[in-house]
Every structure is written in C-alpha cells, then in structure tokens.
C-alpha cells in the first residue's frame, strides 16, 4: 500500500484566531528583537572604538532609515513585553479559561499599541529631538 498522505495543517488552519495570532506575533516580535540586537552591538562597539568611531556611528544611527528601524523595534518590544507577562501569568495557572485568554489577547493588543504610541512619541519628540 502506498504511504498515507499527511493531512494539510498550516495551509488550512484558521490564522485569525486569538490563540494563533497572539502566539505567532509573540514569536515574530521575539525574532525582530533578537535581530535588532545587532544595532545595539554596533552601538556598543562604536562606544568602545573611541570618539571618532562613535561620531561616525552616531551619524549613521541617527539617519532616517534607522528611525524606522527603531520604531519597528519599539513596536516589537511593546508587544513582546506584554505577551511575555501574559505568559508569566499563565505559568501560574491563572487566566487560562477560553474566555479569559480571549480577553487578555485583546488587552495585550490594545495595551501594546498604547505603549508603542507612548514610546514612539518619546523617541521622536523627546529623546530624538533637539536637546
């Protein structure tokens, strides 16, 4: 007998479920943050490299394209932080009923948007602006 086929999974499973969406976004934002560490490492290397190297790095890191990268990183950070807290609560066995986790999915969605808006405002208008 021929080998049995494998039933379709990712291609048929509904992606717009609170459980799927929050899990996928948590992983995605984690990957984005890990890759974003390269920027931090570059900055640290520039700091260690002396005044000239730092001045050079500063020019690059304050360019417009890096502002967009920072915004992406802030968005990933906002979501990943709150999703992580949600996982910590789950690890205590609390908030795991279906209705509760549906509510907390909405909660971390809204809160992470607010956190992101706040951080983006701080970065663009305060920290990144004129001294």
């Amino acid at each position: 007998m021929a080998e049995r086929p494998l039933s379709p999974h990712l291609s048929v499973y509904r992606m717009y479920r609170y459980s799927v969406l929050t899990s996928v976004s948590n992983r995605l934002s984690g990957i984005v943050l890990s890759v974003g560490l390269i920027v931090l490492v570059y900055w640290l290397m520039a700091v260690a490299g002396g005044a000239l190297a730092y001045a050079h790095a500063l020019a690059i890191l304050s360019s417009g394209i890096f502002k967009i990268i920072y915004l992406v990183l802030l968005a990933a950070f906002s979501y990943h932080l709150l999703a992580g807290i949600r996982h910590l609560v789950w690890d205590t066995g609390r908030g795991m009923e279906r209705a509760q986790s549906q509510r907390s999915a909405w909660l971390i969605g809204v809160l992470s948007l607010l956190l992101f808006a706040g951080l983006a405002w701080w970065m663009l208008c305060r920290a990144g602006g004129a001294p």
Partner: protein
Amino acid sequence: MADFRLPANSRIRKGVTHKAPSGARELRTFRIYRFDPSSGENPSVDTFELDVGECGPMVLDALIRIKDAVDSSLTFRRSCREGICGSCAMNIDGVNRLACTTSMHDLGKEIRIYPLPHMPVVKDLVPDLTHFYAQYASVKPWLVAQTPPPPDGERLQSKAEQEKIDRPAACILCACCSTACPSYWWNSDRYLGPAALLAAYRWIIDSRDEATGERLDALEDPFKLYRCHTIMNCTDVCPKDLNPAKAIAEIKKMLVERQS
C-alpha cells in the same frame, strides 16, 4: 522539525465538482478533502453543491446527505451524532470541531472540510489515530493503587475531590485539541500532546490514585510535556469546553513545586 510544506504525496490536486440539481432551495457549497488509497493519486478537494434544506442543520447532516444522495464513496467517521463519541472530529472552516455539534447556521455559504490537521490520512476525512491512542495509553489512564479497596464498597471521594477530576474526565478523545496544536504537528513523535496530557493530569490529581510520583516522573521530559508552549489552540477548540492547556500548566507547576 517544523515541516511547513506538505510532502510530495500529500499535495492537493484539483478535484471534481458535483453541481446541485436545479430548484434547490437552500444552496451551500462544500469543499471536501478527498483521498482514495486505492487510486494511487494525490489527495484532492472536491466541490459539492448541496440543498441543505433537505437535511438536518448540522455539518454532519450535510455529510451524511452527500454520502446518501451524491457520492456514496465519501468516507468519514461518525456515530453518536450528539458530541459524546468524538468520532466526527474534523477541520471545518479552518478550526477543529465535531461535525455533529457544528451548526451550518454558524458558518458561511461555503464550508471547507478537511481531516484533522497533520495526521496520516486513511481515506477522505478519516485520519489514522493509532499513534494518538498509543500516546494516550502511555500515560496509564487507569487507577493505580497498592492499597486494596474497602471490602464493603468502592473507593470513595469527597465532593471536592470529585469536582477536581470532573472536567478532565469528560474528555472524549476526539483529538481536536492535539491536532490543533502546532507543537504537536511538528513534534508528535515525542510530544504527548494536549489530549494525552489532560488524561495524565486527570489521574495525577485523582485522590484515589497512588502513583502520582511515578506519573510525574514519567512526564518530566523535555519533549513529552515541555513541548507545550502555551499556544492555547487546544483549549480554544475543545468541543467539550475542557482545558488541556491549564492541565498542562498545572502539571508543570507540580513538577516545580515538588523540587522544593
């Protein structure tokens, strides 16, 4: 490892369309996964137009109607038609559920029906559950006790003790939860999956069971238990409103607590 693509023998080819006879009152379109092991061909998705005014309101009613009136070769499991046997678990419109308790009124005009995800397919909507059952058996889903039962009756429980196992013991082993779990998709060779772990939990917390330590020992394994990453698809889909994700979290807690 995570295999995102289907193997070559599992990719879906175009299927046939069965048009509804004219004069249908309440037309719905069903796109149903078909696989015939004797044909030697890859699986396909056939389209059935059906007048659902001629059958009952549940998805299972429509499947039975199609088998009776359109294509008698359509193969699926069903028995009790009231959500207690767990036979007709399948992926309906992207979510694992029981065909018998899923009302067509809650779905669109077009209904997609696939077998439970990431399982070997025996025929059409019938997945091979051998491995799933073996995993269930591996958690020893029976009472283990050295103490003999009282000579004049059963082993009694308090009401509170019974309430603890009331929900977990209501599992019908339909496999909706395990086959909704991406961790189970990629690691079912070693990860037990939500259904088996819920069963393990049901016996761990049973006040009459005396093998709690051995049961926890057996689960303390990076794969059997800890491949659960709390994605929550299991609890999301359970047709009996049970909570395998919470059961797994409680087992993890017990493993930590007994270390101190």
